[in-house]
């Protein structure tokens, strides 16, 4: 677990998303605030009514969907 790194993306001082970086370069999206996260298609992300949307979506380094909880 020590090799898992978390990071968040802030644009213009507003947090957009939170991610986990896995050791082999895969990325897990865990929180997002807007639909247009890192240029991903909207259909890939689960929709909720809240501003802060929690999810668990695994992508490879090229942005292909691998797994969605």
């Amino acid at each position, binding site marked *: 677990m020590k090799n898992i790194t978390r*990071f968040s*993306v802030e644009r213009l001082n507003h947090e957009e998303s939170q991610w986990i970086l896995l050791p082999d*370069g895969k990325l897990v999206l*865990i929180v997002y605030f807007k639909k247009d996260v890192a240029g991903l298609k909207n259909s890939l992300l689960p929709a909720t009514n809240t501003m802060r949307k929690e999810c668990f979506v*695994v992508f490879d*380094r090229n*942005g292909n969907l*691998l797994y969605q909880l």
Partner: protein
Amino acid sequence: MYYRLIKYNFEQRIDEAGIMLRLVFVLTLLLLIGQISMAQIKVNISDIKKKDFVDAESALGFGRETKFELAPVNNQWLCNQTKQRYNAAYASPGEKAYYERENSVQQKFVKKIDEQTIVDFLKSIAVVEPKFSSAALNITPQTISHYADTSKFADKAKNNLSAKQIQIVLTEELKPEHIKEAIDSLQHDWWTDDYPYYSIHIILKNNDTVKIETNRQPGYMLPWRINKIESYDLNINKFFVAVMGSYKQSNKNRLEGGYLLSQIWDYCYRTFADNAIIRDNWQKLDPVFYNKLKANFKIKDLRDYTTDNGRQVEGILQPNVLPEKAVIKVWENFDSTRFLKKLILFTDSLKRYFKQSNFVFDYYKQFPATQIIFGWYQERSMKWFTPYAKLNLTNLLKPILVFP
């Protein structure tokens, strides 16, 4: 025959559309020329019957309206006050007595105005300055430091600052580019309960009127509206100040820049000096640690706190070895040797993620105002992972990843 008719109709339509387009183009051009010519106000001094001035201001419990006029009498331009009206609900008895004495609708002679002053003013309104230029205000670091040294504001500005910190603000943070940024930003400033108004109405002999007005709050009150066209011309301010008389609570100070200098000081202090003062604190607290940190990281913010658990350090650092967007947010118990070692190890662990890029880092390259923030707390605390703590993560992800 039918084909010819269609062709004819089609060509005719095309011609009509062409004519319409030309017409629209000519009309737009005329409109533009009209706007430009409206903006260029050319007035000859011999055509002026008089000029009416208004200097007014209101706020909660206070109002003032001062009117004066400038008119030629026996080949001399004389300025006369025509109205003075103070309305102060909460004034002291002394002030009230002054206001009652000054309130008047009688014509009072103020001063003679040189003809050249008026000619210069007419020249300045003939050419519109459509854009604000902070350079035109001619505010340099020396202007601000002189103001901070000599004005009444000096005590307020230097409140709670040590001599060294004041020196930091003056030398490091009052740079020309910072002052430009402050001036540009303060032009968009506004506040409640303050309604200033200035106007010059030039009434010509044929009774045409050129209206020059402003009700902007910030220092210099720019832009002026010359017949509703905006002009950022400071010569209008100079002319107004040259003509107006001397009376209490006038807007003269605001026309000459007013509190802009103190606002620039405040802006530079809040925006730039804060970090410089933090740097100064660290130089005192632990200079060896700070200089080592500075050698490896760009320090965006670094503060220290004393809590029940001892000394804590919190800040944002940008490692020199990582791309500029990548920053590390630190929040740690402070132990200078351990702190540095751990931080450099953490930075090294991040390097590998940037060797092989991924779609998230690539996507945000196009947005300059983006930060990729690595939190440095995951080793100690997994609180952020609470929603997934119930799941057996390793088993769940086994098919798609291999842990080292």
